[in-house]
């Protein structure tokens, strides 16, 4: 008997719009954290990831895509990264499995697929709106596509990254339990910035 459970999205609201700026929940994908073990050596982990995914794990707050474009590696701290893909969480041959095979001996791998929710804010006012809540410099010469910041949006811890310049698009990775509150706060900020 094959049963299954229905996945409930972390935010109940539909996308909201103010002017041409849109706030929406991004589709749920797979997320895995990588925590580098000291003993095995960081260089070994980088090499292994490079071998498998064709990309260097970023050493700075950046997000980089794998050579095939299927996986994004996001810097999460001096020894930690988050690998993101659009695949189905926990699936065979999925991200976690690939990572286990590639570097499971060199780092702690932990599923974060359900831990993190992604809210996407996009449009001409996105920078202005994000700046209402996020206390880091989002000027386009300072914070570019691929840049990442672990910070606070109001009171809520987030990982913000810019994913596109035209129109300006940010993704907020937020702990699932905070997602409704962050959605609300961003919505209020959108209305305020556009009035």
């Amino acid at each position: 008997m094959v049963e299954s459970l229905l996945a409930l999205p972390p935010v109940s609201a539909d996308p909201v719009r103010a002017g041409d700026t849109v706030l929406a929940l991004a589709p749920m994908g797979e997320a895995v954290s990588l925590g580098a073990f000291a003993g095995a050596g960081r260089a070994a982990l980088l090499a292994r990831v490079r071998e498998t995914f064709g990309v260097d794990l970023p050493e700075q707050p950046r997000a980089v895509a794998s050579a095939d474009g299927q996986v994004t590696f996001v810097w999460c701290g001096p020894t930690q990264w988050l690998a993101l893909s659009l695949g189905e969480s926990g699936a065979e041959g999925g991200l976690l499995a690939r990572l286990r095979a590639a570097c499971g001996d060199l780092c702690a791998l932990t599923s974060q697929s359900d831990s993190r929710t992604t809210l996407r804010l996009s449009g001409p006012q996105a920078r202005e709106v994000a700046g209402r809540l996020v206390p880091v410099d989002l000027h386009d010469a300072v914070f570019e596509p691929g840049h990442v910041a672990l910070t606070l949006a109001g009171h809520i811890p987030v990982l913000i990254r810019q994913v596109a310049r035209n129109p300006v698009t940010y993704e907020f990775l937020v702990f699932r339990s905070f997602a409704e509150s962050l959605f609300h706060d961003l919505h209020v900020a959108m209305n305020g910035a556009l009035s």
Partner: protein
Amino acid sequence: MTDAHMSSALATGVPQHRVAGGNGIDAGRTVRFTFDGRQYTGHPGDTLASALLAHGVRLAGRSFKYHRPRGILSAGPEEPNALVELRTGPRREPNTRATVAELYEGLSAASQNRWPSLAFDALGMNGLFSSVLGAGFYYKTFMWPAAFWEKVYEPLIRKAAGLGRAADEADPDQYEKATAFCDVLVVGSGPAGLAAALAAGRSGARVILCEEDSLTGGRLRAESRQLDAAPAWRWAEQVRAALEALPEVRIMERTCVFGTYDGGTYGALERVADHLPQPAKGQPRQRLWRIVARQCIVAAGAVERPIVFSGNDTPGVMLAGAVRTYLNRFGVAPGRRAVVYTCNDDGLRTALDLARAGVSVAAIVDSRPEGEGQGAQVARACGAPFLPGAAITAVKGRMAVSGVSVRDAQGREQRFACDLLAMSGGWSPNIALTTHQGMRPVYDEALCAFLPAALPPGMVVAGAAAGVFGTAEALRNGAQAGVRAAQACGFEAEQPALPDAEPESCAIAPLFHALAGVPSARWAKAFVDFQNDVTAKDVALAAREGFVSVEHLKRYTTLGMATDQGKTSNVNAIALLAEITQRAIGQTGTTLIRPPTQPVAIGALAGAHRGQHFKPARLPPTHQWAESQGAVFTANGLWQRAQWYPRPGETDWLQTVNREVRTVRGAVGFCDVTTLGKIDIQGPDAAEFLERVYVNAWKKLPIGRARYGLMLREDGFAYDDGTTARLSETHYVMTTTTANAGGVMAHLEFCHQWLWPELDVQFISVTDEWAQIAVAGPQARTVLRHVVDPAFDLSNEAFPYMAAGEVTVCGGVAARLFRLSFSGELAYELAVPARYGDALARRLMEVGAPYGIAPYGTEALGVMRIEKGHPAGPELNGQTTAHDLGMGRMLSTRKDFIGRHMAQRVALTDPARPTLVGLQPLNPADQVVAGAHLLPDGAPATAASDQGWVSSAAFSPTLGSWIGLGLLSNGPARHGEIVALHNPLAGTVVRARVVSPVFVDPEGARVHG
């Protein structure tokens, strides 16, 4: 009184005092407003003050203490007198300065701090007793009889206290916060600020120009000055346009930079919608900016000083610069016949502007001796009598000026009729932003001004704020500051071309008061601090009583503590004190000016996080489902958790909770326990790490098993507890209490990164990853069997108490199963990826229905943990030890761990410490209350008999009795004893037996079932 009445009466209708010009108003359009219920009109660009003056309204407010009639003193935010209640209802805004309130259609303002009316104020008679009510009088009396202070005197004082009234309802408007970053922040858009912004902006630097006014230009709009042979304000507009065209320059009008904070952070308030009848939908009323700037140029200008003389607070006495502002910017003549009183050449310009506007200048009174300054010249140009070396000794008129007495250089008294007295004691640079970090200004004798000395890192001062007073000089000075600031940020900058400015004289001779030779009785009407009614006499009295430190003077007399923060009074006060105590002004010192530079609405500092959104709400994965079940929620830190699930027919919460407990104990129930902190711990040294953070042993924990762990703080007291399961040789998952989840994570990181960097281990929170649901009760296994996929053996042998492992559920969903029990029943915690939590709850309801399953909330959870004697938050309160909690034996003696050494201190190992016990009332119906104290039975209700307290209490439906957990001195030795539970707050005493804290199934048979 009659003067004011008449002028008001005449005023309604045509604004009689409008004159030509007015570069800041749109004279072609009219807006209507009311003041004290009377209708008036003004123009867009007017302030409430300028519009009232245009109608000849003189009387604008009452002072704080003596309720003296007060007019409009200034044309800016330094205004101490003309404070009004703006708007009505929930938007009522007390103490709004009429001089900065922008006019909008339908504006409604009312005078404040008067009764029954502004023109006739009963408390005006306070002034008659000014010699009794002098500085600090209240410290000397109201002491007898002692009870009268609170019953009689203070209520009377409080009735008279305060200025305007706060709204009676919640503020309906929204507020917002934002952070901005720039290379160069320019504060102020007068000549220096504009030049600075232009120089810095053209270099390509990111520049923010903040102007608190609605228009850029500063004094350029207030003066009749020319730049490049055109009105100076036109140059300001050109520069504004040029700045606007620069992509990296942001002009923020109506934005006041109010504070300098550490690390180049500046607080600024943007008044987004205060000039509108009300904010548009979604629009915030105000916005708080935190501006992070590498360089800051303070070009905030200067504030003109009044002169201290008898009657200087009479309506119609106005700062000379303000008179020019009203003439030039607003096209309003604040009088018809004016006397100008000055000690400096800048003040003299007022006479020229007045004459140009057709106001007759009755006299020019210059404190400087003949030949000093340009007075004679100016007087000739205005056709006015010139009195050098003279002083104003008295002002005629009570509700409005009708004339002045002048003592000329020869000592002769002359009288001049007038309805306006323009005074200038010179200008005080606006240096507040330079002092917020504790830097003290120094006094410059030549400029008669306090100037900034040391500056916060990255800050420079330019223009009048730096004591550079002429327009041409300020332009140059500002441009240089802009160049230097841009260069400091690594930009190539050059000085922009500056406009030609006519030469102007700013010569000044010190003049702070005109009291020499005036009988000291009249000093009582010579005001230093207008709003707080501090007179020259009060300063003298304070000095006589020894309050000669400037800080003492301020605190004793309340000088400088009014809503204007002493902008117009501080320097005069210091000068007076210096003279009285025979010290130089520089030696006398200055008080530190505290932020904010302008008062800031509390709502703006709070921002959007209000009401239900005061703090974010964390929602567990089953939240929506629980809502659909009609659950009642409670806040547990930031989490919203289901407290209980009422069913139709249940009339109170206790009935519901009893039913939920009985369901678990008799059948099966489930509860979302996702909120417990979950930390994934992996690495070769994970086991060693756990050994060091927990008091008990971990290395021998088999894979697939969980263990209860207790952590101490380094000071030896209990910190947190939870179960930790071993998933593989190097992989553990730790649970923490809900309350300490974040703290434990930080603690682990601290231990790892700082104490034991040699340990190879990684942590990540998985609290949100897993929807963790406790399934508890005799039927728990049976129900789980319907959920957990058949390949997994759930039998007691295969999956015993404290087993842990990875399973799949509902046909392949990855899950973790832990056989843990908080309730004491056969119980499991099943964790599925959070997205499936909602569906899992629904599934459990479905498959559990035949077994009588029901969800239970935190309340039933709490009841059952009390029945089982498990310590939780009330027991783990940071003041208890492992021993206190009955876990002393867990402390390993074979290893080092956090807190081990300090836990051995004598006071922590004293057996007399209150220790965990159970409490069962002799009468089961007697309610046990958490917080009651434990006293020996029959002992007097005094602290000396106090031996502990009830930490947790609940009604146990299992026992049919109220029960409690408590911490009782020598507790474990006293099982069987009867103690008294004293709750004097409620007036109750309950007798209870001391028992084991484990009330239900003490042998623990059920969990193993």
